[in-house]
């Protein structure tokens, strides 16, 4: 069974999903950070594939993308780094990025490599749902790779249903209308949106992302979903600390304290 599906079956709440950019702060930090996150108690991880034009990302992730590319990160390099990761990594692993590098690599080739190294799912925010269903879904299915879709407070119920019917694993529930790295936290306005989505009785669990940064915001988000996703706040942790392992352990423990 796909590791993402299995995770939510066995562990339906308080799942911490952490995003980090591959090849950042240093080119060879990818595996170190991945292992540290597992050791520190993250439940799943999203490895960001850096892109020159990340339109859905705020400044923190933009800078990490730019630095990673300057370090020499590429899709090919990432698959090299992830080879044999399943010897030590048991967590579900997703890759997150923009569609163009995947198209250049070749969608089939990309999915095949994902399956080979043990990647469980993809998040490609600028891949249109229709395009996925018409062209790419059979390839994803063939290699057992889940495609994770985003919904936002502006997404219509009809579209949420369409997305729910065509996805597996989880749905990425963007907390507010913004790019990544917003400082809003979880506000009262968002609760109506979370409640609306929860009342829809969707097939898939949801993870809430954007604006989650610490224990408080994580716990609040977990009241409305199966867990939450931390991105920019974690990028700042690895950016600011020399001792990655220690910093990651401290940060993840603080987010999940008492849980």
């Amino acid at each position, binding site marked *: 069974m796909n590791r993402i599906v299995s995770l939510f079956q066995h562990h339906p709440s308080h799942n911490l999903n952490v995003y980090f950019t591959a090849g950042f702060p240093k080119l060879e930090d990818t595996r170190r950070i991945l292992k540290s996150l597992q050791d520190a108690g993250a439940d799943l991880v999203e490895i960001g594939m850096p*892109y*020159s*034009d*990340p*339109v*859905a990302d*705020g400044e923190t992730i*933009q800078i990490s993308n*730019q630095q990673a*590319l300057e370090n020499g990160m*590429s*899709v*090919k390099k990432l698959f090299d780094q992830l080879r044999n990761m399943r010897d030590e990594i048991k967590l579900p692993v997703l890759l997150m990025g*923009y*569609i*163009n*590098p*995947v*198209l*250049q*690599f070749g969608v089939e080739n990309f999915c095949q490599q994902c399956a080979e190294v043990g990647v469980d799912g993809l998040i490609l*925010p*600028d*891949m*249109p749902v229709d*395009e996925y269903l018409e062209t790419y879904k059979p390839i994803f299915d063939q290699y057992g790779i889940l495609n994770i*879709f*985003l*919904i*936002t407070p*502006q*997404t*219509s119920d009809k*579209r949420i249903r369409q997305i729910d019917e065509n996805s597996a694993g989880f749905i990425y529930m*963007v907390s507010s*209308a*913004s*790019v990544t790295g*917003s400082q809003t936290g979880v506000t009262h306005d968002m609760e109506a949106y979370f409640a609306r989505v929860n009342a829809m009785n969707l097939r898939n669990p949801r993870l809430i992302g954007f604006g989650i940064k610490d224990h408080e915001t994580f716990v609040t988000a977990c009241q409305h979903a199966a867990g939450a996703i931390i991105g920019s706040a974690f990028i700042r942790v690895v950016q600011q600390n020399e001792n990655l392992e220690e910093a990651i352990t401290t940060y993840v423990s603080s987010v999940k304290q008492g849980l």
Partner: protein
Amino acid sequence: MTALQNQSAYQVNERGYYGQFGGAYIPEMLYPNVEELRDNYLKIIAQSNFQEEFQGLLRDYVGRPTPLYLAQRLSEKYNTTIYLKREDLCHTGAHKINNTIGQILLAKRLGKQKIVAETGAGQHGVATATVCALMGMECIVYMGEIDIQRQAPNVARMKMLGAEVRPANSGSKTLKDATNEAMRHWINNPTDTHYIIGSVVGPHPYPDMVARFQSVISEEIKKQLLEKTGSELPDYVIACVGGGSNAAGAFYHFLDDESVKLVAAEAGGHGITSGLSAATTFLGKIGVLHGSKSILMQTEDGQVVEPHSISAGLDYPGIGPMHAHLHDSHRALFYAITDDESIASAMELSKLEGIIPALESAHALAVLPYLKATPNETVVINLSGRGDKDLATYMKYL
């Protein structure tokens, strides 16, 4: 017409594609905005009160129709018959305002109160700031930090018109990055803001919508040519291509007249093998940028390459999906014009005709030596803008 019912092989289809190019590759955060636009733009454009207001402003505010001018001394020099379509005489100095008027009228009818835009040379930014002043709407323009430096007069114009100019500091700090920032701004302000894209790029329906607003250029050319020559069809139409909006407008009503040769001038920079170029069709491959699938300058890894052109308005690593399709289907012929060739053509037009062209438009003029048109052939060159904004560059060559 409220649905896309295009018979033409060169027009967008109902899925938002030109051949294999186009579509709407956007993050979910932009989907409701783009969907709203897609579901409404044809309906709104077809409304008689929209058309009245649009045509009225094009006439009384922009100064349309712009002249189609027989450039006699230039014709003598190249031994053919050359007409210049004088978009440089539009209010604000370029064709860009045809589109901004159309889009702001549309934005008003969608109930939007604020406008965001990107700009390269500053011409689109000025044209957007202008219509925002006209309509009393708040205006934010993103502009690459490098372009802010090299197009200072346009920055001042935008400020004088009441717009806020925000520097784009990421990436190459030029047009592509300003576009990224404008898209991020739209993501952050999804309900009250309309994004006025400045060219035939972006997710569907932008390329088609902008092309429709610019199509007034070829509509007028046809009428004017008929009056002047007895035939509405020229042998050649030449235009420069950054994103491709002036070219889309100049080509639009000739797309299905296959006897009319369509010629696009891209920015070759220091030359297509120099590493400092913006000649997308020569250097690019199929890919996705700013919401559409098109031809794109990129690395093997799919990272977008930073382009170079002396002309800020052509300094863009992609082209609109319509042009990618015109290239792919060989309907249009593409030339890469170097920085030096464009400067020489700007100097030539100034001396021969007393018209100082924009650097972008000078790229279209620089196709003339390659064209080898005969004396009884008719060549229409779209003079997309005037050169006032480029004087600082031109001064270095005087």
